[in-house]
């Protein structure tokens, strides 16, 4: 749906790599363009009209984000460069100082590198312990398995709401409830969920949540860190500089500003923030429930077709999100991706930054299809038609 809004779709392309990044609608591009063309000033300098407008637009996005994820207050919305920066800020700025030797951090083997490596570093520096939740036969997290590995030493549970290869939707609300009964913090990687479903952080009761604009029709290089206010206040800013300090003197006495400014040092990515605002307005206009429902139907359609091809092995048959990871028997995933590229179909081959997932699935590399609301059943038909002829794949894979 809404295909006419996307200039990229005017090319003869079938784009099925939305888990990597999404296309941008005209409205978002126009809004960014408008900033650079008509009020391209810095933020936080309201002395003249165009700068005042920058502040208004910049803070308007913060309001939009707050509403979009239903945060309690706008101080809980921090702009970052993306999910990766957000997760690193939480790990280094908050947990590095709040974790003791022997404390446990729970993750899974299906997490993206960005939700693994920051925890590895903390574990190494603070002598904490990484534990992996055992996944079920569909490579999914269950509350039972999570409960089993929680101990009095468990301090953090860090999980993607939707993982980028398996595409399972984790029961974050129930996980938060279980965690909080045991005084455990929950960090949510929302990179793959926020673009595709309605998320309410107060309802989930998660402690932190991060996401990126570029996977939800917005620009690259901008994202959001949400945190409960009292937790964000306890974060040690990693970056110090302009815009985040209240005052300092030559005796080195420094006073920092209140949230959210204290965690946004330096000239921010203004065009990015404004573009993110436009992306949220755009998604709101369509409606997140509608997007979720449409993608669910599309996934079911895709699965029903792929399942019929005997030599295709679907790794995540029972997942709910619009992500399908598969392999063609005896053909290297990258060769399948190259083959599809001949027909202008974009899918991704590889480990998709989930490098320890292979220990779980036994499969190192896969082809991944990741859908968005602008994909269609006709596109899926074309894809399936091309995958339905193994001789053709072999004949045209190089």
């Amino acid at each position, binding site marked *: 749906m809404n295909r006419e809004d996307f200039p990229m779709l005017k090319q003869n392309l079938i784009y099925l790599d939305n888990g990597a990044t999404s296309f941008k609608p005209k409205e978002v591009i126009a809004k960014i363009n408008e900033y650079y063309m008509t009020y391209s000033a810095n933020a936080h300098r309201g002395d003249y009209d165009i700068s005042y407008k920058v502040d208004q637009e910049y803070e308007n996005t913060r309001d939009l984000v707050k509403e979009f994820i239903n945060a309690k207050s706008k101080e809980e919305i921090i702009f970052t460069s993306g999910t990766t920066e957000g997760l690193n800020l939480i790990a280094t700025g908050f947990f590095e100082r709040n974790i003791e030797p022997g404390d446990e951090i729970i993750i899974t083997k299906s997490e993206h590198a960005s939700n693994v490596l920051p925890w590895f570093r903390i574990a190494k520096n603070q002598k904490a312990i990484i534990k992996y939740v055992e996944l079920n036969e569909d490579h999914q997290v269950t509350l039972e398995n999570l409960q089993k590995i929680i101990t009095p030493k468990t301090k953090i549970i860090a999980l993607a709401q939707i993982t980028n290869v398996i595409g399972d939707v984790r029961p974050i609300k129930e996980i938060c409830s279980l965690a909080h009964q045991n005084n455990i913090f929950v960090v949510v990687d929302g990179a793959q969920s926020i673009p595709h479903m309605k998320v309410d952080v107060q309802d989930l009761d998660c402690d932190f949540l991060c996401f990126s604009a570029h996977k939800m029709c917005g620009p690259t290089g901008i994202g959001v860190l949400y945190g409960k206010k009292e937790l964000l206040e306890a974060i040690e800013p990693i970056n110090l500089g302009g815009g985040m300090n209240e005052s300092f003197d030559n005796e080195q006495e420094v006073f920092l500003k209140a949230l959210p400014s204290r965690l946004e040092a330096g000239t921010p990515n203004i065009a990015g923030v404004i573009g993110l605002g436009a992306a949220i307005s755009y998604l709101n206009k369509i409606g997140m429930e509608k997007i979720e429902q449409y993608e669910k139907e599309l996934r079911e359609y895709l699965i029903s077709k792929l399942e019929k091809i005997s030599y295709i092995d679907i790794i995540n048959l029972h997942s709910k999100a619009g992500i399908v990871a598969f392999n063609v028997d005896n053909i*290297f*995933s*990258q*060769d399948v991706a*190259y083959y599809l590229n001949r027909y202008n179909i974009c899918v991704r*081959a*590889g*480990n998709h930054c989930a490098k320890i997932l292979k220990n779980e699935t036994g499969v*190192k*590399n896969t082809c991944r299809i990741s859908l968005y609301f602008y994909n269609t059943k006709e596109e899926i038909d074309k894809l399936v038609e091309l995958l339905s002829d193994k001789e053709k794949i072999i004949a045209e*894979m*190089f």
Partner: protein
Amino acid sequence: MDQEIKREIIMENYLHPYNKATINDEEYIKVNSNNESCIDNIDLQILIKSGRISDIKFNGEACAISTASTSIMIKELMGKTIKEALDFINNFEAMVNEEEYDDTNLNEALVFDDIFKQKNRKTCATLPYRGIKKALMEYEKK
């Protein structure tokens, strides 16, 4: 070379790669070669005796082009002196990079003489060459 023949050679080397194995022998020099932008990842093991390459084995996961290119490369480099091997490698790289090259001694490796037409597969064809070149140059320095 005729496109059909090229295809057959690539397919044959992909499906039945030469010396795809790992050997547990300290005498072999080990080198890993991988492509940053994709998932090809191969390990090479090289045995040099009296200044000549007496054996090369490889293992790993790679696409059809990388696998076939590795298989062909190993066949061509066996028995060569280090200098002969480096000359062969440089000549092959020149061909892939659309530079001047000598087509008289590349043999089966000529199947990749038009791989430059698929920019994203150039790195696949040159993957094993980059790894072995590094290993041979380091060996020479010692």
